[in-house]
Structures are given as C-alpha cells and as structure tokens.
C-alpha cells in the first residue's frame, strides 16, 4: 500500500478535566498525517503539537499497541475502536480516513465506566466482575503433563476462542443497553468448558452475573452489536451458554 498524506483533518475530541467536571468537545486541526500512521500515533502527534503550544495534552489509554492488552479504547466516528471490524484502536491506521474528514473521538460511555479524564474511563468494573468468580479457586502445583486431562477438541477450541477476550470493554461500550454480557459470557464459558473450571461453574455464573447487575450494566437484548464490535470476535453463542449455565445454577438452588 503506497503512502499518502492526509493534508488536513479536523478532530472533535472529548475533553474532561476529571471525573467530577463537566466535559465538552474541543476541535483541533492536524496537518500532513501519513496514511501509514496508526490512529494512536496520530494522537501522539497532536499531543506533541499541544505541548509546543503549551496546552494540556489529551489523555487516552494505551499500552501494548499491538492488539493484545485491551488498554486502548475510544469511540471513533460512532464506532467502538473505529471503523474497522475485528481490530483494537491501536491497530487502526489513518488510511481508513479521508483527507479533510472530521473525526469524532469520545470515551466509552457507560454508567459503569465513569470518565477519569478526557478519553480515559475507569474499567475497574470488569475487574470487580472477575474478582466475583472469574477464576479457579484451587491451588494447583506445576503444569500438568500434556494429555493427562483429556479434553475434547471442540471444547478446547471453544474455550480458546472465549479466552481470547482482552477485557477491552468495547462490547459494553457499543451495546445500546451498556450490557457487559459478552465479557462475562466469555469468562464464564472459557472456564465452564474445561474440567478444572467446571466444578465451580454454577457458583461462578451466579456470582459474576450478580456482580455485573450490581455494577449497573444493562440487560442484554440479544442485538448482537457487541459481537460485531469485539476485536477478538467473541461470539454471542457464549452468551447463550452463560444463560444456560445461569439457569442451571438457579434451578439447582
């Protein structure tokens, strides 16, 4: 792909001093951006420009910048992680934008993900859900020998698919109901499918769903928006499994 230059872009970016302040959109112009630049690099360039102008830089989350940690977020032009499917914001490139375009950049919007500053939101809610049951509570020794615990191939594959979730929050951010079901389903599925996690499956499903509700995430209405924005292609079939696991657990009570 040949390099091209975007001569001018208009950026409408959400600025908010801290959790308590009222935020607002600020408009910035940025010039001569290569289409090979990543979206976050483009924001870096904008921040350097702001430093030169002695203005406060824009705060945004990022870490690995290679699509594996789940730190980057951003609602770009009305879509979680921007216009591409199946990628995180750090993997998004400026070739997806046109010269002269106005790009709207907002933080994740969800009552359970309060804004900390500018584009950074607090995603501790996901950690709290994990702490409620997203683990196996036995102290294991070393790594077991290969094949000592037989697991059917399709189970292993599905568990691996669910384990791909990086906890980015795009599912809840994009869902019209702010539902965290895809995230919770991925975690419940991953463990319920494997023999080590199966033992606690009932307790886990109940505890994680209760925590998710308590934190103020909405109710899933099966629109499927989460799955189409998930950078790791977690399927809502996992939500069906979570519903099953939860029902089974409640019927056992």
């Amino acid at each position, binding site marked *: 792909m040949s390099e091209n230059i975007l001569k001018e872009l208009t950026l409408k970016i959400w600025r908010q001093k801290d959790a308590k302040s009222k935020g607002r959109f600020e408009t910035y112009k940025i010039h001569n951006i290569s289409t090979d630049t990543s979206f976050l690099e483009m924001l870096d360039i904008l921040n350097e420009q702001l430093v030169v102008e002695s203005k406060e830089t824009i705060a945004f989350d990022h870490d690995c910048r290679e699509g594996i940690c789940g730190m980057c977020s951003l609602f770009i032009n*009305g879509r979680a992680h921007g216009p591409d499917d199946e990628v995180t914001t750090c993997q998004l490139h400026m070739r997806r934008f046109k010269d002269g375009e106005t790009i709207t950049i907002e933080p994740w919007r969800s009552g359970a993900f309060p804004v900390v500053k500018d584009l950074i939101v607090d995603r501790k809610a996901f950690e709290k859900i994990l702490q409620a049951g997203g683990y196996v509570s036995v102290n294991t020794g070393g790594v077991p020998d290969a094949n000592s615990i037989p697991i059917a191939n399709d189970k292993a594959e599905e568990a691996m698919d669910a384990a791909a979730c990086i906890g980015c929050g795009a599912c809840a951010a994009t869902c*019209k109901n702010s539902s965290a079901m895809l995230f919770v389903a991925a975690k419940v599925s991953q463990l319920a499918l494997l023999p080590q996690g199966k033992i606690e499956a009932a307790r886990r499903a109940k505890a994680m769903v209760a925590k998710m509700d308590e934190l103020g995430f909405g*109710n899933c*209405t099966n629109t499927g928006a989460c799955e189409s924005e998930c950078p790791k292609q977690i*399927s809502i079939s996992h939500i069906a499994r979570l519903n099953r696991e939860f029902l089974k657990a409640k019927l056992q009570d």
Partner: protein
Amino acid sequence: MSNFLTSSIGKKVIMSISGLFLIAFLIVHLSLNLLLIFDNSGELFNIGAHFMATNPIIKVVEPVLALGFVVHIILATILTIQNMKARPVGYARSEQSNNASWASRNMFILGGLILIFLVIHLYNFWLNIKLPELGTPLEITTVDGVEMENAYLMVSSLFKNSVFFCMLYVLAAIFLGLHLSHGFWSCFQSVGFSNKIWRKRLEWVGYLFAIVIGVGFAIIPLYFLAGFAG
C-alpha cells in the same frame, strides 16, 4: 431460586417465556383468522369463532393470555428503563446501524405501537362480543342449525367500510412482523437454547415466521378492501 426475578438473566428468561407464549397465541389467532378469506359465506369463520368462544379450554387460556401480555409489557418497561439508565451520558455520534438490526434496536417502540393497536383492536371486536352493553351487539346467525353470533359480519363490515382501519391493521401486521424478526430467535437465545449452528437456523426460522405472521395478518383486511369478499 432466590433473587432470580431481580437478576438480569432471570428477567430475560421470563420475558422470553412470555414472548414464546404470545407467539403460540399468534399462531392460533392467525390460523383461525385465515378462515375469513377462505369462505366468503362466513360460515367457516363463524363456526371457528363460536368454537373458540364456547370451548372450556379456551376459557381457561384467555386470562392466562392476558397475564402473558401484562408480564411481557411490564418486564419490557422495566428492562428498557434500566437499560436507558445504564448509559447516563450518551454518545454524540453513534453508528449503530453497522452492527445491529433496526428491529433489534427498537423492540420497545415496536412493542409500544403494537400495544396501541391492541387497544384499538380490542375496542373494534372484543368489546362487542364480551361487553355488548358497551359496544354494538352482534347479530345472530344460524349455521347447520346451531345459533351463533355473526362474528364474520362484524369483521367484514369493518374492513369493507373503512380504508382507515384496513391500513391500520396492515401497519400493525408489519410492526408485529418486525418485532418477531428479532423476537423469535431472541427468545431462544435468552433461555440458552442456541449455539453457532442453531443460531443460523433459529434466525432463518424467525425471519420466515415473521414474514408469515406479517403477511398473513395483513392480507385479511386487504382481501376485503379489494372487494374479493363481494
């Protein structure tokens, strides 16, 4: 089963069961109504309506049906309010059409429109049958020596004489079809009956069912409006 009903999934399960129940009702309702356009003398429909009005099983099911509607509507309202509250600050720009069907994003609006229609619909027909003091009592007709109310006359004269009501009923059928284009597969997903393979099947059966229900109900007023019944 403690706090099942207050949990998000618990509410969805009840929503799903009430939805399935309403689906079952629609199948019976449409089958019976189609008799309206298969026999212009009206005898078949009158026999069907008389059977439904006198059958003891139907007498028991009727209040359960009403309860099904009430549960469905109350839970839909609770879920929708909670879901709106879950995002106190909205997005300035949101391109939802990219990732979820229009019907799935507007279930409450579609349901609300269906509810408005339902009130008018009950006023049009149900009131005259159940509370004739308040409406227009039905004429009595005799089919095969059995005296019964002429429900056919009531329905056919409404549709023959009012383009407005015909259009209203067609519109309601479309809303119902749209509601079901998402609702059908959704109620299986909500009780956990879905996986990668079944999801495709349920979605297709759902679309087919939505079309059958939408077209099936819409065709009836159009048949009378077009003058096919004479």
